[in-house]
C-alpha cells in the first residue's frame, strides 16, 4: 500500500489560521449576521461535485479559473472561466460548473457551451460569504472532466445583512 493514498487535504495552513485570527472580528460580525444558517462545507460541496463527476475522476489542467486573490466585497466577486478546447462538433466543452465550498449553498453557476460558442469562456459576478475555495469542473464532449480551484480571501462577506 502506498502511504500517499491516506493523505487528506485539509486546506488550512499556518498562514490562513493567522489570517483568520487577525480577521476574527470580521468573522464574528459575519457570523452574527447569519445566525443559525446551515453552511456548506467540504462534504456538501463534494456531494454536489459527485453529481457531475458520476464516478469519474477529474483531471488537472485545460481549465483556467480567474478570480481575485482578495475580494474586498463578497457581494460581487468577478468570476471568469476559460477552457482550452478547439470547440468543434467533435471536440468541445459541454459545460463548466462552478462551486464555492464555504457558501451556504455550494453551487454557484453552470455554463453550457455549444460548438457555436467558438470559445469556451464565460464571466459573471458571484457572492462569497467568506474566505473559501472556488472550484470549477469542465465537462468535455468526450466525457472527460477537468477541474481547477482557487482560494479567495473575502474581507466583507456577501451574504446579506
Amino acid at each position, binding site marked *: 500500500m502506498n502511504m500517499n493514498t491516506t493523505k487528506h487535504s485539509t486546506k488550512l495552513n499556518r498562514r490562513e489560521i493567522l489570517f483568520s485570527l487577525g480577521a476574527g472580528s470580521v468573522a464574528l460580525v459575519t457570523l452574527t449576521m447569519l445566525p443559525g444558517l446551515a453552511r456548506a462545507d467540504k462534504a456538501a460541496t463534494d456531494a454536489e461535485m459527485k453529481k457531475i463527476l458520476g464516478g469519474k475522476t477529474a483531471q488537472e489542467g485545460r481549465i483556467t479559473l480567474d478570480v481575485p486573490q482578495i475580494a474586498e466585497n463578497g457581494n460581487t466577486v468577478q468570476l471568469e472561466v476559460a477552457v482550452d478546447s478547439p470547440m468543434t462538433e467533435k471536440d468541445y466543452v459541454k459545460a463548466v460548473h462552478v462551486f464555492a465550498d464555504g457558501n451556504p449553498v455550494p453551487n454557484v453557476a453552470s455554463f453550457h457551451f*455549444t460548438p457555436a*460558442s467558438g470559445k469556451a469562456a464565460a464571466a459573471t*459576478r458571484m*457572492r462569497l460569504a467568506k474566505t473559501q475555495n472556488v472550484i470549477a469542473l469542465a465537462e468535455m464532449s468526450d466525457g472527460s472532466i477537468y477541474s481547477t480551484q482557487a482560494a479567495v480571501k473575502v474581507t466583507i462577506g456577501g451574504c446579506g445583512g
Partner: protein
Amino acid sequence: MATAKPRIKIPAKAAKGEVIQIKTLISHKMESGQRKDKEGKKIPRQIINKFVCTFKGKEVFSADWHGAISANPYMSFYTVATESGAYEFTWTDDDGSVYTKSAKITVN
C-alpha cells in the same frame, strides 16, 4: 415586482467565422434566500435561475444560476458569427416570469 431591465452589448458587425464576445446585464435583486428580515424571518429566494442565448432557434450558450450570483447579474460569453441575424436572450425568474431581449448583428 419591478420589471427587470435587460441590456446587451454585441458588436454591430462581424466577419464570417469571427469569434465575438456578448456581454449581458439585467437589473434584478437576485434575492438569495439566505437573508432575514427585521423579524428574523427568512426572505424567500427569488432569483433568475436560467439564462439562455439562441441564434435562429439554436442554443448558443446557456447558464444555470444559483443564489450565489450577484444582484443585477452580468454574463459574458462568446460565439462564432456565422450569418446576419438576431440573437435572442431569455432570463427565467423563480416566479415564472421570463424576460427577453434580442440583438442584431450584420455578418459579412
